């Protein structure tokens, strides 16, 4: 799976909505372009008349009434109209969670996304990271928060930006109307490698979604061959479990992303790298060279055999 397969486009297209939330914003953008285009035309014509006009046309522009009408009244009416339009759209998009919604909590962390699927009562079903999977056609309530600094969740094809603020849960209700893999990014500068904090929001046909959730909520696949068994031993002996969880093993750390399904992820390093055995090895050995400032330290103590084994083990976690 290459990055080109992981996203529908990068950077994510901002005016190609895949759901009602983004549609309202795209429509607003086109209305703004249209009205402001007319305003620009009006201003250019007025300037041309004022500079090069003769006689009556030019005199009209010198009248006090014209200045009140075109310079004060018209902008006030236009901008007030935009304000009302904006408030109405904002109100429409600030929806309350509804019973029957799928609930997913996404926590912004420096510099990745903790994604927790919840049941109807808000109990945790399982942890995932750096990608969001939703079924087409069903409303999803995203509970957005942060573990450290302010981040902002933005998947432009699905919805507008919503800030993720420590100690607060912001609700974003989205729906995807077509299947696809939509790119997203942190839209609030959060220090260090902020620009390398991306994610994928994938919308699936309902049956595919149910199958995916069943796979991802299960315990990790046990290693089946000698290389991957050795990889698991290296993983556990190197202390990876202090920060990472692999469900079904003794690795139960919570500081970093849950790796139970790391081999199935669409990207690596929070939306920045294709996910294969090579990039997994590069990330484990020296993540900081790829994503400067990342909290994961380099592992120069791993030798070639260990790196081969651990990469093969991680690739198989799916």
């Amino acid at each position: 799976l290459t990055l080109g397969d992981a996203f529908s486009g990068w950077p994510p297209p901002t005016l190609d909505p895949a759901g009602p939330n983004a549609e309202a914003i795209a429509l607003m953008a086109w209305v703004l372009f249209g009205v402001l285009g007319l305003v620009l035309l009006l201003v250019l014509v007025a300037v041309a008349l004022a500079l090069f006009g003769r006689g009556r046309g030019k005199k009209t522009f010198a009248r006090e009434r014209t200045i009140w009408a075109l310079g004060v009244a018209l902008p006030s009416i236009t901008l007030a109209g935009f304000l009302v339009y904006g408030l109405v759209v904002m109100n429409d998009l600030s929806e309350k969670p509804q019973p029957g919604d799928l609930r997913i909590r996404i926590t912004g962390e420096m510099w990745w996304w903790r994604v927790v699927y919840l049941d109807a009562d808000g109990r945790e079903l399982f942890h995932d990271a750096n990608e969001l999977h939703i079924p087409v056609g069903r409303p999803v309530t995203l509970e957005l928060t942060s573990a450290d600094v302010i981040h902002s969740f933005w998947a432009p094809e699905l919805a507008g930006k919503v800030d993720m603020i420590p100690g607060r849960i912001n609700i974003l209700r989205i729906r995807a109307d077509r299947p696809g893999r939509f790119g997203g990014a942190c839209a609030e500068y959060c220090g260090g490698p902020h620009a390398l904090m991306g994610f994928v929001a994938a919308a699936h046909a309902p049956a595919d979604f149910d199958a995916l959730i069943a796979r991802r909520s299960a315990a990790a696949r046990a290693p089946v061959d000698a290389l991957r068994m050795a990889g698991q031993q290296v993983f556990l002996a190197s202390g990876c479990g202090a920060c990472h969880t692999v469900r079904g093993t003794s690795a139960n750390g919570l500081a970093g992303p849950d790796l139970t399904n790391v081999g199935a992820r669409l990207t690596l390093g929070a939306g920045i790298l294709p996910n294969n055995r090579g990039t997994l090895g590069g990330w484990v050995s020296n993540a900081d060279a790829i994503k400067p400032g990342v909290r994961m330290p380099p592992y120069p103590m791993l030798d070639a055999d260990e790196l081969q084994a651990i990469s093969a083990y991680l690739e198989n976690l799916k």
Partner: protein
Amino acid sequence: MPQEPAPEAAGSVSVSLLRFTQPAGAALIALFLAACLQSGGGPQQPIAGADVARGREAIAAYGCAACHVIPGISWPRGAVGPSLEGFGARSMIAGRVGNEPAALIAFVRNAPSVAPGTAMPPIPLTEGEARDVAAYLYTLDAR
């Protein structure tokens, strides 16, 4: 003793030659640079049917730069394996096998089979992609 004046004389001749030929030298250097720029596009070891541009795309798509600094790929600049700057002029692959097209094509797909003990894992490239990648690597000239 009689040999001593000779080097001095030779030295002074070459200095004066340099002085006289400065414009010509500059023109030669310009010609040399132009030749370098022209030769930069083609592989040193041609691979039949391979496409250098597609090779660069495959390198970006598979994330080879997660481990290697690769000219032509601005990010990432991985620091796990060797930099591939000047790879086209390098004699050895992974310090183990001669840098021949057949070996390189096999190595980029399945490094451990060509150089046992390497940290570079097998990469899921197709045969065609591997040929393109090798063709791109051979354009990485030391100059």
